[in-house]
């Protein structure tokens, strides 16, 4: 342990880290909002954002302004919040399952949430973002419950957990297709890609606020169990012998994960692999202890999904790719790399 650094340096470091990450987040968000077709210059982007944030700048023409403020800004922010939520879920699931490959998409939770959301849409049960999120939550919990039921009470090996998750994910993806194609109208059927692959194209301010609130509360809840998650490194029995309330911590972790995944999926569909790529990259930077890994992964997830979505909507412009395509193209090699590393050990 290096305890040589002075007290003021110890205090200064987290402050510097916080200010630094805030600047990076702001810069990436600005780049994401400013990038794209329509010949909107960087200064016009800055003017539009500035005007809406109450700065004394001349407002833009309404049309250009609405592209920046009504389409791109919520899209970038939703990408940030969804990315933060999904990356955090990956960290937590990896800790409680003690499995480096666990994340909401690979465990089928995202697919279950999609099915739930689609059912709410098609049956017209309630309306609006909240009931959609409620349906997604029910579906996500159903998928999660099914995975746990199939695994049984024994502590499952890594491979079995992921295989079970993939199979359950396939089941719910099929159910989503069935509901949309069998009972939905043509409009709903066009949403198939959205619910199965995930896309940020439909981002608007209300879903940004809903996601931001839920992810924010989740991060605070997870901060409370961060040191407990560290203790899971050597299994539940060792964690219990260290005074960790294992059942309660598991419950907080799993419920938080299910709620965050559900709300994110109800806003952007099932975007995969964020919870796999980001925590692994971030661990290499800040180490495996959760009081640093959780906030750092949230920031990393936000940056990653903002960049991935910017690539998705500009790479083949004027065509737009769903963000989930980009994350999957990056995620599959990452998955194979992690699997390979585990097997070598």
């Amino acid at each position, binding site marked *: *342990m290096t*305890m040589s650094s002075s007290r003021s340096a110890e205090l200064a470091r987290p402050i510097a880290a916080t200010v630094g990450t805030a600047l990076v987040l702001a810069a990436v968000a600005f780049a994401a909002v400013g990038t794209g077709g329509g010949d909107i210059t960087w200064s016009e982007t800055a003017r539009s954002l500035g005007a809406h944030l109450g700065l004394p700048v001349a407002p833009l023409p309404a049309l250009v302004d609405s592209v920046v403020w009504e389409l791109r800004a919520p899209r970038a922010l939703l990408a940030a919040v969804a990315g933060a939520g999904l990356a955090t879920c990956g960290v937590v699931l990896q800790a409680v399952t*003690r*499995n*480096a490959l666990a994340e909401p998409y690979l465990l089928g939770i995202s697919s279950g949430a999609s099915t739930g959301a689609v059912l709410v849409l098609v049956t017209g049960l309630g309306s609006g973002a909240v009931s959609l999120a409620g349906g997604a939550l029910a579906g996500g919990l159903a998928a999660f419950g099914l995975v746990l039921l199939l695994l049984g009470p024994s502590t499952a090996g*890594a491979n079995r957990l992921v295989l079970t998750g993939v199979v359950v994910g396939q089941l719910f993806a099929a159910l989503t297709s069935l509901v949309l194609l069998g009972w939905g109208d043509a409009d709903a059927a066009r949403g198939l890609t959205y619910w199965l692959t995930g896309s940020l194209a439909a981002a608007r301010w209300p879903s940004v606020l809903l996601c931001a609130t839920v992810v924010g509360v989740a991060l605070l809840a997870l*901060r*409370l169990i961060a*040191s*407990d998650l*560290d*203790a899971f*490194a*050597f*299994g539940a*029995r*060792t964690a*219990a*012998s*260290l*005074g*960790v*309330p294992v059942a309660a911590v598991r419950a907080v972790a799993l419920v938080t994960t299910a709620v965050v995944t559900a709300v994110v999926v109800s806003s952007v569909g099932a975007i995969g692999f964020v919870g796999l790529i980001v925590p692994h990259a971030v*661990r290499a930077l800040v*180490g*495996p*202890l959760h009081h640093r890994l959780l906030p750092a992964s949230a920031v990393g997830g936000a940056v990653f999904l903002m960049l991935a979505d910017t690539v998705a909507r500009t790479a083949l412009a004027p065509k737009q790719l769903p963000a989930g395509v980009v994350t999957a193209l990056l995620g599959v090699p990452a998955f194979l790399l992690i699997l390979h590393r*585990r097997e070598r*050990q």
Partner: protein
Amino acid sequence: MSPGTAAPARGVRPVEISGQGLTVRVRGRTAPILDDVGFTAPAGCVTGLIGPNGSGKSTLLHTLAGSTSPQPGVVRLDGRPFGELPRRERARTVAVMEQNSDSDTDLAVADVVALGRLPHRGRMAPAGPQDAAACARALDLVGLTGTEQRRWRTLSGGERQRVQAARALAQEPAVLLLDEPTNHLDVQHQHELLSLLATTGLTVVVVLHDLALAARYCDRLVVLHEGRTHAAGRTHEVLTADTLRTVFGVRADVSRHADTLRVEVLGSVGD
């Protein structure tokens, strides 16, 4: 590890751990794994749990640790039912070192040892100077000072065992429960770890496979056989050629030289 330097941390008073009528069953097995086992490990002694595979040693250790609930039966610390203590106080009193503790998480040695401070810290509180001192002391006891920044993945099996021992010592417990801690250790480190345990002054309960090590380092032994206590008492009273024949199925010479007991296994009973 230098035997003799080990001493219980300030303010730690060894306590007696005991169990009465401990019975543990698992579904699908008619015979209980533990069948009405009575058990006492006196304060400050090293008590060895020995017995053939499947005799219930690890289950008894987990029952003492509180991670397996006996039905019926009760575990007591100095006469007080263990289960009545708050969770964190239990973790400050009894530390457990599991067999084959492994992790996918690539923690640094310092991080693993610091886990032992969790029951002493507030949930959100960072590690303080007391925690750092306890960790440093524990690492020193197992002879791993200077390895703080090494990663779990780079450690040998024996080093991992010693890091886990340091983690358990960093808990500053009154009772230390260990499940075959000498697994993976080379001969030198087996002896170093056990002589360290013997000099801590803590109440130690240790599952051992190696009868020679049990004879050498345990003050008392409990012999388990098919889920029951076959014999319990001072090592030289318990570890007899007769016990070795009936419980372990081996012919053995047991001899006493000065203060130490020697066990030499000659062959299986059938030979």
